[in-house]
């Protein structure tokens, strides 16, 4: 048993897509006596965040968007439902808060550390946005509660100007505001409100979407559905009393109902670790996924500063890379460069409304070539939404 006692500990902070897939991959790749696997998650609940896009339109049962993290992890993985209060790189230890908030903190030693701690929304970074959200003139669908409030607001909406805008860069799931706009337009038409509603999509870019090929597909759809597209509009301020949106480029517009992507920051623990940049993103090597300058510390998913989409798909692919690197380190073998280098791969769907969607797939070297939207991709997305629990967290795909 001596080697069991001395086995190295791999600590993973965060039980989202990346952390969960990584933990389960490692449990499969490494024997129990080779490494202790620890996952720390502050809620103990795994959320399927892409489902929030559909909640405002009654297109999703919220009960299907959450599972207990324990139920998704292999037995040998130790789950701590706790908040990491401090990362001490010098002593290689984490300080964990007592979940009840009254007991003593616990110190956990690690040999390898993985930040899979995700991103958080920070509405306070746009002056006036917290007030507009509290007032109910602005809404967001980046939390389950926010998406449900938005559903009520849309249900009560009868006419006026709906603005869909982006409050900060980067944000999770780049196509989401565009998808939301398409779904909203179809929803308004179904309810007979389309003719009484002015709908505007505000893009921070010189086009509807960051990727030109996707934009070429989306722009005509916006136009043919009568959705106004305002480009180069980076929201900086909201006057919630006058219901005005103001931009970095010096423009302003009035809205009746604002749906905004709030600014995002890296998880608080990344920020407090002293390893992250001013916005909480961890400087991460684009191929090895090591936190720059920190041996034995990795980052994956939304918390990295990589120039790829903040999406579950990126976290999923990155988890396999980190698993290979950690397995190689534990077994003191060389890394398989094919499996142990992230190539920037991302794959996602983009809903375009009316039960149609397209698929966006790319990596660092290859831009996406999205196919013409069709029912097939929408069906594929719907099936994926249902199959997620069986396929992704257990690392079956």
């Amino acid at each position, binding site marked *: 048993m001596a080697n069991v006692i001395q086995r190295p500990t791999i600590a993973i902070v965060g039980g989202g897509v990346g952390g969960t897939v990584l933990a389960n991959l490692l449990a499969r790749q490494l024997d129990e006596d080779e490494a202790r696997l620890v996952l720390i998650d502050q809620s103990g609940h795994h959320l399927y965040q892409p489902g929030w896009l559909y909640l405002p339109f009654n297109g999703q049962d919220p009960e299907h968007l959450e599972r207990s993290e324990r139920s998704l992890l292999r037995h040998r993985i130790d789950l701590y439902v706790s908040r990491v209060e401090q990362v001490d790189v010098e002593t290689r230890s984490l300080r964990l808060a007592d979940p009840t908030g009254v007991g003593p903190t616990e110190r956990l030693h690690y040999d390898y550390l993985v930040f899979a701690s995700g991103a958080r929304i920070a509405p306070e970074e746009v002056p006036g946005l917290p007030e507009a959200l509290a007032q109910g003139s602005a809404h967001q669908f980046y939390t389950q509660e926010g998406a449900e409030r938005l559903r009520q607001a849309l249900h009560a909406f009868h006419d006026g100007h709906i603005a869909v805008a982006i409050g*900060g*860069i*980067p944000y999770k799931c*780049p196509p989401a505001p565009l998808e939301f706009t398409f779904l909203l337009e179809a929803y308004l038409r179904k309810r007979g409100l389309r003719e009484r509603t002015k709908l505007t999509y505000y893009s*921070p*870019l*010189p086009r509807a979407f*960051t*990727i*030109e090929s996707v934009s070429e597909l989306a722009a005509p759809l916006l136009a043919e559905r009568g959705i106004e597209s305002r480009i*180069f509009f*980076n929201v900086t301020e909201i006057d919630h009393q006058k219901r005005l949106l103001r931009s*970095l*480029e*010096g423009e302003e517009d009035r809205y009746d109902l604002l749906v905004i992507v709030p600014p995002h920051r890296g998880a608080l623990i990344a920020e407090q670790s002293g390893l992250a940049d*001013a*916005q909480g993103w961890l400087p991460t090597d*684009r191929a090895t996924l090591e936190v720059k300058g920190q041996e034995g510390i990795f980052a994956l998913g939304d918390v990295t500063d990589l*120039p*790829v*989409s903040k999406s579950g798909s990126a976290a999923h692919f990155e988890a396999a890379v980190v698993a290979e690197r950690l397995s190689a380190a534990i077994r003191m073998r060389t890394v398989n460069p094919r499996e142990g280098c992230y190539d*920037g791969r*991302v794959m996602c769907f983009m809903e375009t409304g009316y039960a149609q969607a397209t698929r*966006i797939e*790319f*990596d*660092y*070297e290859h*831009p*996406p070539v999205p196919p013409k939207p069709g029912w097939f991709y929408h069906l594929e997305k719907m099936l994926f939404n249902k199959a997620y629990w069986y396929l992704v967290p257990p690392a079956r795909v």
Partner: protein
Amino acid sequence: MPDPITIPDARIDREVDARGSFCPGPLMELIRVVRAAPVGSVLSVLSSDPGSAKDIPAWIQKAGYEFLGAYALEGYTRFVMRKTH
């Protein structure tokens, strides 16, 4: 902190490497840095996306910042600007 990079007429305070970025894209990466930087900073972005040659100067002009130049390097371009307000 790494040493500031010096190019012909400017000292770069903050540079973002967005090579290989299609989504969110080099311009989005630049805007992210601009939002967080103090007024007066010289900022740059590295891009391997040919579309940046049009997009990045156009946005800098629209936002009223100072475009300091585009420098072609091996397989990518460094775009430099100053946050003037």
